[in-house]
């Protein structure tokens, strides 16, 4: 396994700084929301992680198309990396949403269209790894995974649009309103600053983890290849 490139080491450091800065902005710079109190501050991380995770899931569908046309296993490794990091980010999104919901909706979880579709997305991509575990042949595994991720990719836009298409209590804070939403609010200057910074920070953190995970995938492929060579 090659040593970590300098650019990736720098990106690792930048990611840590950005995460700390986003936390500082969310807690100390953004004003407190009057109705919900301090718990509203997790919104910046909730949307930041959801943003990159959903884009990551759509990206994996695009990678499926590239793999299926080229049949190059490199694209399969990139896809696994994208799915894994997206699953981690989306898990944070769901947990933060649940923590926010407890004081705002008086429940940890409700089967609202947004929450249900979000849970489905997460489970679809956890099942993606279970599918991969069941297949030993790398080409067969890559083919099945690509087709699965291509179909699974549909779940991401459904989740994004669910609060705009269905009757839901989930707030629509960006680009739209929802009259039936509970816990809705509009963002002021300091809130917008924290919000856009969190979006930027989580995008950079995602890229950093994604790059690290791709390197891990390359090392895994190398080990698999060496094991096959050793067997013959």
């Amino acid at each position, binding site marked *: *396994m090659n040593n970590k490139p300098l650019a990736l080491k720098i990106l690792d450091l930048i990611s840590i700084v950005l*995460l700390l800065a986003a*936390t500082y902005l*969310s*807690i100390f710079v953004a004003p*407190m929301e*009057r*109705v*919900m*109190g*301090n*718990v*509203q*501050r*997790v919104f910046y*991380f*909730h949307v930041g*992680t959801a943003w990159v995770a959903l884009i990551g899931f759509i990206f994996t569908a695009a990678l499926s198309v590239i793999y299926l046309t080229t049949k190059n296993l490199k694209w399969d490794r990139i896809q696994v990396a994208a799915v894994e990091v997206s699953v*981690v980010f989306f*898990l*944070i999104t769901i*947990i*933060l949403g649940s*923590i*926010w919901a*407890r*004081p705002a909706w008086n429940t940890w979880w409700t089967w609202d269209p947004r929450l249900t579709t979000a849970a489905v997305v997460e489970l679809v991509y956890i099942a993606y790894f279970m599918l991969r575990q069941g297949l030993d042949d790398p080409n067969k595994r890559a083919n099945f995974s690509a087709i699965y991720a291509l179909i699974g990719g549909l779940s991401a836009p459904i989740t994004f649009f669910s609060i705009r298409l269905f009757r839901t209590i989930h707030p629509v804070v960006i680009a739209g309103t929802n009259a039936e939403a509970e816990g809705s609010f509009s963002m002021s200057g300091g809130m917008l600053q924290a919000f856009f910074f969190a979006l930027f920070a989580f995008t950079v*953190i995602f890229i950093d*983890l994604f790059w*690290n*995970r791709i*390197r*891990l995938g390359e*090392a*895994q492929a*190398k*080990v698999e290849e*060496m*094991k096959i*060579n*050793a067997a013959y």
Partner: protein
Amino acid sequence: MFFQEVTPDTSSYMIAGFAITFLVLAAYVASLYLRERNLKQDIDTLTELQKAAAAENLKTDKKRAPKKNAKK
């Protein structure tokens, strides 16, 4: 106005939210690090095995070579 709006103290939920975010990210980074370390060990072991196998092949080739010359 008859009702005074009081902002509820939801700080504990906020702290829990940020703590879980950091925990999940830290756990993932740790898993990446551990997997990378294990793969490095695997690569080192397999490289040594390959070298040992290559050296063994070289020895057997050298042993066979004089016999072939003797026949000639």
